[in-house]
């Protein structure tokens, strides 16, 4: 949790006939971060054969990808991996799965064909529906059976029986018959159809004893308002279309138990094949290597010996031994082991990079620093409560598969931020911008509004000072962590001479002391010269030694070293000053948060000078929503920025390789 996990390097040789059993054991234990033999020994790897699993692996991957795709198009949630016996997975033939998927897809394509047919009918009817208003508005020339545009519109009468017959017959065509009224004992009907079916429609109309009438300008308006049947028909087709879609989903859903079972087995099979793809082989033996967390080394060793009945050769090497070997590119991976509740902060660390092996895992420190910064910028218990609720909803949605894992993790971070804001809100006595309860620490709102504050904090400058000291503490911790990292990695020159090394730290510490003394004297006098000379001047001079020491054997280049030294000094002095002052943004964002709330309260007051009314309540609600959204985002981003640029830059070496064992673990 404080440092990356210690690692051991495994080199193992097993008999070829044991390779499947060994792969299954490696997967079951899920602790080996494989290293290809070529990386360990590029010259010696030529005498070994690569594993011959590529073809099968591609088939397995393809089958699993296809299942995912079919579920996705059917809007069925993705399958969640569950533990499966590796022996069961080995018995599955991926080609037969692909064949079954082919037949399922063929079944789907048949339904798709029906969908397409219905859709084409919808398209045609919608064309009729679009044309009807054009006919009535006179935009097009009205046309009876002799017309020459796409739409053929006919008016006429037929018997009630004939009308019923007509409706039945027209169902096969993109056409619609609307009942407009009665004339004597006959039904007045408007028939609209696409011209391409004219002959069929005419034949139907003749069969129904349709007596055609001239269409007059007056009828055009009736045509326009008589589209109900057409819309009904389109609605009916859309219902059929929906049924086909449901049928399609059901087709997949009916196969879901089988597909799910096959998917699980394919996944394990894929993992087993991926493990085997990392093996190198000779005629009778299989060789593999990789990194294992030292704490789990014994269990793996015992497991491999048990599965091979002792017929194996296993070597374990330490990290130092491997670093000193002839494989300079071989780097131990970094495993960050943190409890589940710190995972959101581990995500923040991983986004920046992977810490180099053996260095500090900053997750816990980031959790503390990030939340403190956020709390100081977003100190309102009510707003915090809302954030925590939003985060909780996100986590619940994530557990139901409605949010991606990344968004779910972000929601967990939001819960943490909300909780912290509740605490700092209580410390500052702020509840939705109102002082419902007295502050436990100091009245942030009162200080910003100019009518509060007492004791240590009574002006905005006090808040700014607080954040500067907070920044000094964060940078100080960063420097100490850097020294620890450098000691652990035995990098002595940077430990002393780097700008974040001991000399840089002394300069920074003395600078802070000098600035504090200067401020304490009312910005009149600096401390005495001797301490400054010893604490700042001397370390600054000593920094020069870094260049001859780090360029040993490259010849004497005094001019060049002086240039580098001067630039380094500039970086040290301006960098530390900027880094420290950068923390004033914590106060800035906090003040902005309060000021925005004050502004909304004033707007609400202006909207309701005689006491609260609905408008003022709406303004306050919207104001709170805006502040929660805007300031929540700003505070979150600024906290991250301070961690990444002011804190991490002091000690975090993001050149590590992520520890990635092949395992059944889905997390």
């Amino acid at each position, binding site marked *: 949790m404080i440092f990356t996990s210690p690692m051991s390097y495994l080199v193992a040789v097993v008999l070829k006939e044991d390779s499947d059993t060994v792969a299954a054991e490696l997967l079951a234990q899920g602790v080996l971060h494989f290293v290809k033999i070529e990386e360990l020994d590029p010259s010696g790897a030529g005498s070994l054969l690569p594993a011959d699993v590529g073809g099968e692996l591609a088939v397995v991957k393809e089958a699993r990808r296809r299942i995912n795709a*079919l579920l996705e198009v059917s809007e069925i949630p993705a399958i969640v991996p569950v533990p499966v016996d590796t022996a069961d997975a080995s018995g599955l033939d991926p080609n037969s799965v692909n064949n079954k998927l082919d037949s399922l897809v063929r079944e789907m394509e048949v339904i798709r064909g029906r969908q397409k047919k219905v859709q084409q009918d919808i398209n*045609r009817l919608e064309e009729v529906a679009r*044309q009807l208003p054009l006919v009535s508005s006179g935009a097009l020339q009205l046309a009876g059976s002799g017309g020459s545009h*796409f739409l053929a519109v006919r008016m006429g009468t037929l018997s009630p029986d004939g009308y019923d017959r007509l409706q039945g017959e027209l169902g096969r065509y993109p056409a619609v018959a609307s009942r407009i009224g009665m004339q004597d004992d006959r039904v007045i009907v408007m028939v609209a159809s696409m011209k391409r079916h004219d002959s069929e429609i005419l034949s139907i109309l003749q069969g129904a004893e349709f007596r055609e009438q001239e269409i007059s300008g007056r009828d055009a308006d009736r045509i326009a308002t008589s589209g109900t049947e057409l819309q009904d028909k389109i609605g009916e087709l859309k219902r059929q279309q929906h049924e086909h879609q449901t049928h*399609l989903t059901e087709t997949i859903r009916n196969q879901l138990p089988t597909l799910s079972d096959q998917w699980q087995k394919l996944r394990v099979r894929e993992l087993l094949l991926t493990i085997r793809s990392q093996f190198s082989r000779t005629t009778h033996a299989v060789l593999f290597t990789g990194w294992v967390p030292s704490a789990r080394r014994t269990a793996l060793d015992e497991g491999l010996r048990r599965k091979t009945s002792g017929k194996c050769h296993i070597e374990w090497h330490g990290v130092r031994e491997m670093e000193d070997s002839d494989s300079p590119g071989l780097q131990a991976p970094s495993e960050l082991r943190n409890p589940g509740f710190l995972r959101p902060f581990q995500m923040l660390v991983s986004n920046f990079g992977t810490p180099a092996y053996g260095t500090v895992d900053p997750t816990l420190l980031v959790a503390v620093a990030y939340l403190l910064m956020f709390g100081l910028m977003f100190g309102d218990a009510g707003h915090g409560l809302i954030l925590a609720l939003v985060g909780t909803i996100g986590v619940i949605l994530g557990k139901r598969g409605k949010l991606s894992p990344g968004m779910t993790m972000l929601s967990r971070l939001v819960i943490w931020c909300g909780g912290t804001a509740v605490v700092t809100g209580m410390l500052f006595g702020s509840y939705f911008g109102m002082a419902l309860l007295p502050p436990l620490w100091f009245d942030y709102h009162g200080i910003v509004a100019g009518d509060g504050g007492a004791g240590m904090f009574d002006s905005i400058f006090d808040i700014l000072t607080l954040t500067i000291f907070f920044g000094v503490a964060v940078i100080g911790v960063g420097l100490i962590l850097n020294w620890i990292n450098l000691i652990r990695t035995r990098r002595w020159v940077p430990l002393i001479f780097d700008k974040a090394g001991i000399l840089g730290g002394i300069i920074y510490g003395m600078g802070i002391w000098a600035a504090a003394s200067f401020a304490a004297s009312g910005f009149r006098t600096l401390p005495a010269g001797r301490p400054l000379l010893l604490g700042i001047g001397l370390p600054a001079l000593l920094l020069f030694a870094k260049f001859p020491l780090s360029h040993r054997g490259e010849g004497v280049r005094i001019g060049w070293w002086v240039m580098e030294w001067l630039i380094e000094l500039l970086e040290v002095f301006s960098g530390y000053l900027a880094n420290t002052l950068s923390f004033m943004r914590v106060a800035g964002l906090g003040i902005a948060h309060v000021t925005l709330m004050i502004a909304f309260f004033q707007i609400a007051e202006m909207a309701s000078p005689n006491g609260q009314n609905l408008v003022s309540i709406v303004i306050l609600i919207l104001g709170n929503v805006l502040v929660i959204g805007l300031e929540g985002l700003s505070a979150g981003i600024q906290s991250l920025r301070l961690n990444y640029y002011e804190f991490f830059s002091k000690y975090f070496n993001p050149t590590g390789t992520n520890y990635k064992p092949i395992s059944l673990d889905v997390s």
Partner: protein
Amino acid sequence: MTRVATYGFVNAKLRARISMMLPRDWMLQMADAHSLTEAVAKLNGTPYESASVTYQKTGDLKLVEAELLRLERDDVLGVQRFLAGAPAALAEALFRRYEIETLKNALRVWFARTVAGRPSDDVVAYLDHDTTRSGFSVDAIVNAPDMDSLLLALSGTPYGAIAAAELPEVAQRESLFRLELALDRRHYAELRVAIEALDAQDSAVAKRLLGIHIDLLNLLWVVRVKEFYQLPEQEVLGSLLSGGAAFNERVIESIYRSDAPLESIVGVLSDRYTGAETLAGESDDIRRLALLAAMLQEVLMHEIHRVMGGYPFNVGIVVAYVLLRQNEVRMITTVLNARHYGIAPDAVGSML
């Protein structure tokens, strides 16, 4: 306004969008899908997800294509929001391509029904009824009973005069070719006017990119005519679009007169393209044409990336973005159709 002020935001925005475009490898994976259903499913999670939803709801590939085109069109239209003045006018001129294409499609429907006597009203549903910025109605065109009505439908639009000039020949030759060509020429003339209104640096970049695009169209046209139609030489050469970058009329003329026009083109481009052997080894004419199209497209992509690698604050990014977006949608459409017609994935690769 300084160049940075004019192009700073649009440059950042469009580069970010370009970085998220679907790469060729992704297209090849899509082409590898076992069925059209699985190929379309690959669009889920991309900016084209609505096209996948359209397919799930309708099973109609043509509607999927229409949806893809709508997404492309809206995206290109959106570029204008980031621009003002002459660059915005160029973006508008580029956008007009969609209107021209819609008009050409509508005219084809009209022509099939009134002149050729083979109605194709099923196509109407796939026409884009929303692109008409010039005020013509797609419905009025496809439903026009005769030429006079068609002219009436186009009167008052920039295309009315073109239609009036070319329609008699349409009836006489029973071909829309001259009318479509005149519309294309109008589009490229509009583009040239918009380009001339830009400052010198912008104008040079835009001319270069669009010139290569015009080269591509001209060369494909010449080869297609030579291999399949055997039209009179004067008519072919008279139908070329002007404004090409690398192939002037004399070069194209010599290519047309050559016995092996494809090889002549490859000869000119061989310093930029490594796939000439593939083209030479292919005997099927249609496949050779597809390979040529892919080769010329690659040349265009090469130029686009060259422009993008240069000075960032000019109109090049706008033209490049539009061409890249069009290319992306073209590739998706090609792959989906290839899956629909069961073309082998290997063959699809050479069409992209």
